[in-house]
């Protein structure tokens, strides 16, 4: 089966559970194939967990869910050493992070200390505990969610840590028709449970490798950099996109091309991804009179910037 068909099959698979959100499904696959992590920022109950669950189920991968609370400790994520009486030694009991797909629910509810332990694992793809290094499972993908509506008792992620997520997505409410389909479904079983895995973890790794071979033509690289530079020079932003951001956009674009069945990037890919990949990596200038966190505003600024940059012909 060629990669395009596999990917299409996965998309259809997940779409059986997540109704009416093909773009979100596509982007979560992009994040997976680009070896990136996904930050879902939306109100509770729109399917964040279901999305993560479905993805994991379709891939024949292990799935763990961590509900972040203010009293969660790093060891609750990473794991703990427990004294084994028989062996007379401490033994490392791996935490929930040792899975292929990890859902970090309400990541902004926990303390920075715990947050950073997760984020460290995300960027290093390994855990250091008691002077020992434990590699994480591959593929490894974190899907974090956060609730933008509540601020009390939250610890917003700093920009430096938001940078670790490849993209930030909103799911949004489904249309009435789609919502009806959801309600008509038999409620006895979690919908994700009935999904059949289509890919092994090994297949996912192969697909991830294919992403590296997607061609990005020089003029498109220039176009991408022009967008990144424009964020650094914009008066509306106090912080532009970092080099890691540029790298993330490039990887995401390649992955999107693969998802769409191409072996080369198009300017369209870059343009479409820019608001999703870049908007959480910038800081809106205070002069804009809005909260720093305003997701929509950041997205809008990126969109406006992209709309002004000439596309290579």
């Amino acid at each position: 089966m060629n990669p395009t068909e596999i990917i299409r099959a996965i998309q259809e698979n997940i779409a059986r559970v997540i109704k009416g959100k093909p773009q979100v499904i596509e982007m979560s696959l992009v994040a997976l194939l680009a070896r990136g992590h996904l930050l879902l920022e939306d109100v509770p109950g729109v399917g964040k967990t279901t999305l993560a669950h479905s993805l994991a189920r379709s891939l024949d991968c292990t799935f763990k869910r961590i509900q972040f609370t203010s009293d969660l400790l790093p060891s609750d994520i990473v794991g703990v050493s427990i004294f084994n009486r028989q062996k007379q030694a401490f033994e490392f009991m791996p935490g929930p992070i040792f899975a292929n797909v990890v859902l970090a629910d309400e990541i902004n509810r926990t303390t920075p200390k715990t947050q950073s332990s997760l984020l460290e694992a995300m960027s290093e793809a390994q855990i250091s505990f008691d002077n020992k290094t434990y590699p994480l499972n591959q593929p490894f993908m974190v899907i974090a969610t956060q609730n933008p509506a509540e601020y009390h008792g939250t610890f917003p992620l700093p920009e430096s840590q938001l940078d670790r997520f490849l993209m930030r997505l909103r799911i949004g409410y489904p249309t009435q028709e789609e919502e009806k389909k959801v309600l008509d479904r038999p409620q006895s079983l979690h919908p994700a449970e009935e999904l059949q895995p289509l890919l092994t973890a090994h297949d996912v790794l192969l697909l991830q490798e294919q992403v590296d071979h997607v061609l990005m033509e020089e003029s498109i690289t220039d176009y991408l950099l022009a967008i990144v530079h424009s964020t650094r020079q914009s008066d509306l932003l106090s912080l532009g996109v970092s080099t890691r951001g540029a790298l993330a956009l490039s990887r995401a674009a390649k992955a999107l091309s693969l998802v769409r069945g191409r072996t080369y990037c198009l300017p369209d890919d870059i343009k479409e991804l820019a608001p999703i990949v870049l908007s959480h990596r910038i800081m809106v200038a205070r002069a804009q009179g809005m909260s720093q966190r305003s997701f929509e505003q950041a997205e809008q600024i990126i969109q406006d910037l992209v709309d002004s940059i000439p596309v290579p012909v």
Partner: protein
Amino acid sequence: MPFDQALRFASIWLASTSFIGLALGADLPEWLAALTGTALIVALLLNRGGKAVERLTTVTSISNTGWNLLAIIGFLGFWVDMLWVSGELLPAGIHFLMILMIIKLFNLKLRRDYLHLYAISLVTILASGSLTTDLWYLHIFLLYLLAGVWTLLLFQLTKDPEETGNLTMLVIRRPRLSASASHVTPQLFWLANGLALVTFGLTLVIFFTIPRVSTGFYQKSLGGNIRTSGFSETVNLGEIGPIKRDPSVVMRVELPDSSRHEVGRIYLRGVAFDQYDGKAWTNRLNDRRAVSEDATGMFVLRGSRSPAPPRLGETVRQNILLEPLDTPVLFAAPFIERVSGKFPSVQSDLTGSVYLPFPSSSRIEYSVLSRSNPVLPADRGSEPSLYPESFTRHFLQIPARSERIAVLAEEITHAQHTTYDKANAIQSFLTHNFQYSLDAPLTEQDQPLEEFLFTRKTGYCEHYATAMVMMLRTIGIPARLVTGFLATEWNEYGNYYVVRQQDAHAWVEVHLPHSGWITMDPTPPSIESVGSGFSAWHALGRMMDTIRLQWSRFFVQYSAADQLAVVRELKAGGTSARNKALDSMSALFTPFMAMFGGITEYTSKGTIQSLAELLILSLISLAVLLWLGIKRPWVKGMICQKTAHDEQLIVQLYERMISHLARKGISKPVATPPLEFVRLTRERWRDAGSAVGSITELYCRTRFGQISPTREELSLAEDHFRYLMALDKR
């Protein structure tokens, strides 16, 4: 060369040609000419770039306000110039124009500035055209035309599709096409030059067919008339001498009916003089009367007081192109019968000389029918006879009777019996016994004639002629002195005589009882004129003179009458071509021929209407050519065409599709990527969606995926494009 630089270069070139035209045509002050010239050179250098130039840039960088201030100062200067310095609108305007050109040359930033520079250049070349009639203008004009086509083409090509309605945008911007495309390629080079040639051809067509309204607004005498001597009311003896070294051309004479071999040399009669006071000749019979005009516009001379026996001599037809002289005399071979030309009236006096009412300030052309006066057989045997008193008073007048001259005349003629023989004897005596020399300063003498005859024995035409007239008169034969030109220099390229100042001549007319006035010339015929050498240099000179004459004839002096002649000739040519074609072609082409015949017939009416139609036709074809040259996508294709590489082909096809869609009202914003544009097109023009989609897909794959398209895909894409072209929007 990149387009931006090429445009700059072409614009400066345009300005330069118009400036050179003006500098050659008008009297620019030296400082202004030098300043503008320097500015043009500096602008050219700035365009070339380089280190030294960057230093220059810093020197010449003046703020916008500074330039505006300069323009205002220039405008004030214009008023000062017009009111006090030059005192006229035209020169002051030209000076101001130069200042404006300098200012614009250093301010070529916006596209608007380029347009301003073009407008200034246009006005400049027009001014220079109205200020000159010389041949060099043709070259300048050709250069200007070439530069003009180049600039307009480049101006169009550098234009951004997004820019419509926004002229203030900077010219220097990110190259829109790929780097190889925005260079001047050989194809573009030849296309532009070809267009220039076509434009020039059309200019000629328009020039020859557009109806003339007036003879030009600025027409005035330039450089003044040529000073002549010998044709005024009074001519001092020896006055002609000094001009005998002046080689400037006075007129050109064409003999339409006879070849040079028949003619040899030709006398061009100017003025006749009857009274001699010992030092100067005067024309007392200068009572000028208007010559009546016959039905065909010819001025017919008749009623001259000289006895006119039936004239039997040969007629000579001459077409004369007379330079502006300071005398109103019309020169022609003796004796004038009919004159026609573009002047309202002609006068003649009693000696048969013909005048304009006043000296012409421009070159004039006229044709003359002359009839020579042969010596009748009756005069060869007749004795001297008596003349009426009025006749003898004029033509037998002698200042103070000189015995020595009378004795000499008697001595020479005593053996002869008839008037004609006596005159001949005196003529041959003078011809053979005196030496021709221009170095004969017969100055300040009481009796220059006696000095010539008895002491010095050298002189030139005037002396010979005066001596002959005086000797004839002392023995009772009426005679008069005639001044004019003796044409000897034949131009074999144009088949005409070139008459120069140095051909000025004086000779004698003797009255015979039966034949009337006949021409006699006592001056030895050994006048070797300067231009009669046969060296290659002189031949070249004559050839140049011919070209100059044709220029003057067909461009400067071109008039409505000539236009009609051209149309008539075209018609004749058209008719003969049609006849020939009809003879040789089969009936297959009959409908077409009938149409063609209809057109020629229509043209043959020679009305303004047909001229206007021709004009409109040529204008339409010009517009079509321009549209083809500038708007058609294949020109752009031609520019990009580097190699017939498949990748380039599909990219070109895509660009053509984009511009085609833009013409259909779906323009592609710069920031719209290809697939998004496909969606946009689909929304706005459903039928085109699939074609656009497939072309875009192939383009994306080739351009960004670097996957070469196959032949089939290419031809499929071309089919799609053709389908798109044929598709009518909504």
